[in-house]
């Protein structure tokens, strides 16, 4: 899972360093690695072929930048092409005489009903719309009940009707939404196979009755190569206006999103990020491109690191680190403040390549970002002399500090320990041991 395509490409292209231009053969070597990685990410073959052609055209003949690793250079070209192919951030378009109608469709088990609930909450909370949820899923047992529960949870209106006839329900839901003058009607439909002619015909008939403002395909982000066939079949039968990829909080690299976007040309609107009704995120191409490449949101991380390093504190810390002087408690505090600025440990882990998987293995209580605030409080309760010379911190002083910041001696001990570890790390960094250790971790 921890796959750094950059490293792989770097290896493939290491022979290039010092050459003037990227040749066709060089680029092809890199593209073979790229194909393997994209296949592992479940990107469908037609999309891969298109992407590789684009990259080849742009990369061949490109001058190898002085100082840059040619692998990184190709990765940049790949990354940019991927972002382009994923399409821009697109808002959900709901301009229509009320009620605006959203049709939700997809395969069984894709997450339509849960997403309908999430969308209702999102429309209510961020767009200040009144929403009605209506289920046309008369096939799956308790699907109607499930949507009604979600309506209650999200504060949306719930359409209820005795009839188990899909068309009767569709017409009645439209009439009800008009009567109550809701802003948006979300119509959840039964899961269906694209090859099920009868059920696809039903979807077309429903579409004619409700005349949707938006037609969203809801699909599992873990879908394999079949993603292209599924998206194409639905798009052919009922022209889609948006895609929602669910279960993107899982480990899958989400190539299905690219496959579906590529084959339909329809924008990706939202990503489902969890089981709670609030777990719906607007799609950002940069984040997903990095994820598909298996390198995390490198762009965002680089941006944050640059901002942090640009600050005066960052520069001074680095200077001290290189000078070989040991760090005091004030330095530790500065480090903590920088960490906090960058979104805390959880924020950092989100952005680091391959750390998504790691993040879930870490006890959430241990990366509680409030911990940083408390640790800073501990340092603030020390005297200037203690901060400069932490070896002064005997038991008595630690008890005083704990009282001063309203925490326990155990908390104070942890900060002292952190300080020791920081100094050990910096020693290792200077001696090059850390690089060796990181090398072993790969």
């Amino acid at each position, binding site marked *: *899972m921890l796959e750094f395509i950059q490293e792989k490409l770097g290896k493939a292209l290491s022979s290039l360093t010092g050459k003037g231009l990227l040749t066709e053969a060089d680029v092809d070597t890199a593209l073979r690695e790229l194909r393997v990685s994209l296949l592992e990410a479940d990107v469908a073959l037609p999309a891969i072929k298109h992407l590789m052609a684009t990259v080849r055209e742009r990369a061949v003949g490109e001058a190898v930048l002085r100082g840059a690793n040619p692998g990184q250079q190709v990765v940049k070209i790949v990354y940019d092409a991927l972002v382009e192919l994923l399409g821009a951030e697109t808002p959900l378009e709901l301009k229509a005489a009320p009620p605006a109608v959203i049709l939700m469709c997809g395969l069984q088990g894709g997450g339509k009903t849960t997403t309908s609930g999430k969308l209702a909450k999102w429309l209510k909370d961020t767009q200040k719309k009144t929403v009605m949820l209506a289920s046309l899923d008369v*096939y799956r*047992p*308790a699907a109607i009940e499930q949507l009604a*529960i979600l309506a209650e949870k999200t504060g949306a209106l719930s359409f209820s009707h005795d009839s188990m006839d899909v068309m009767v329900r569709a017409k009645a839901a439209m009439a009800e939404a008009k009567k109550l003058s809701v802003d948006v009607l979300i119509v959840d439909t039964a899961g269906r196979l694209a090859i099920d002619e009868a059920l696809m015909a039903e979807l077309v008939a429903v579409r004619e009755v409700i005349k949707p403002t938006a037609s969203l395909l809801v699909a599992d982000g*873990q879908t394999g*190569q*079949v993603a292209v066939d599924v998206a194409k079949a639905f798009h052919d039968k009922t022209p889609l206006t948006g895609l929602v990829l669910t*279960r993107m909080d899982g480990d899958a690299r989400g190539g299905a999103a690219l496959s579906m976007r590529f084959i339909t040309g329809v924008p990706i609107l939202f990503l489902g990020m969890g089981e709670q009704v609030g777990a719906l995120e607007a799609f950002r191409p940069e984040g997903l491109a990095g994820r598909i490449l298996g390198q995390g949101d490198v762009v965002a991380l680089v941006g944050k690191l640059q901002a942090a390093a640009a600050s005066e504190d960052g520069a001074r810390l680095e200077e001290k680190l290189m000078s070989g002087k040991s760090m005091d408690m004030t330095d530790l505090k500065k480090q903590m403040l920088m960490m906090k600025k960058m979104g805390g440990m959880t924020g950092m882990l989100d952005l680091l390549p391959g750390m998504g998987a790691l993040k879930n293995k870490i006890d959430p209580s241990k990366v509680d970002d409030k911990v940083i605030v408390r640790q800073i409080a501990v340092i603030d309760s020390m005297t200037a002399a203690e901060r400069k010379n932490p070896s002064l911190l005997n038991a008595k002083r630690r008890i005083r500090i704990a009282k001063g910041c309203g925490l326990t001696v155990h908390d104070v001990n942890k900060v002292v320990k952190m300080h020791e570890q920081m100094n050990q790390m910096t020693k290792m960094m200077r001696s090059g041991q850390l690089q060796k250790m990181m090398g072993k971790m790969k």
Partner: protein
Amino acid sequence: MSWLSRITAGLTKSAANVTEGIKQAIGIAAKLDDATLEALEEALIAADTSLPVAQALLKDLKKAKLPDPLTQEALKQALADLIAARLQPLAQPLSFPASPTVILVAGVNGAGKTTTIGKLAAQWAAQGKHVVVAAADTFRAAAVAQLKVWTDRADASTKKGSVSIVPPAKEGADSASVAYAALEKAQNEHADIVLIDTAGRLANRADLLAELPKLNRALQKQDATAPHHTLLVLDATLGQSTLPQVAEFHKQIPLTGLIVTKLDGTAKAGFLLALAAQPNPLPVVAIGVGESLDDLGPFEPSAFAAALVGIDSAK
């Protein structure tokens, strides 16, 4: 329609792409040349077999004795034979070592656990078994109600056996307590099988996965050998994330088998070949090919392989 032809009917539809690929691959060429091999590789990848598996299969195909002159049918058959041979070790039916035999069913969200349990319960009841189903998905909205519809349907479908459901004692009850109550009921009533439906959980949610061993411990208070089977339900439409998914579940609760659902569509479930290539591969105890009660049946590697490469079952 017979069970076998039903599988192949479902799978043939799904095999359309592979067939197309092979047709193109053969073209005029009557030998296994580079263009043919490339087209075959793409066809296998499109079936989610993964690149390494596709390459290994083709390596074997090159070594295989092929008839001369080579025909499209012969090539397809040779590939199907290679696939079937690799999958053969996975074809193992479920055993019932105890009375009651306790079967835990787990999987990611939307894989089809509840539907599969409904089908299993109905089939066993039709064979005269008495089945108790634990509605231990206490998380998803209306999950218990969904299972209740299935078990009622299953119970009504036969006079020979029976299916009863044990719902949570109260809303939001602990899933372990539901499993415990179901096993207790099954023991008191001398039922044959206990099926435990669990909430869907993604493989990277260590916190949610950790609930499963807890559920097992609750069962083991009554029967130290329970659960006798721990089955993971896999959606056939999923891709390469299936392997790490199986590994993560297996780490938390040692799995004893897999069930592949939704093979009735364009989905090909080629990932089974990648799973079969692992040491001690898990058996596939059943596959689901449709939505009705009897659309769940045994995994037959030769039928699966024939359909995957597009061999017409009518012949």
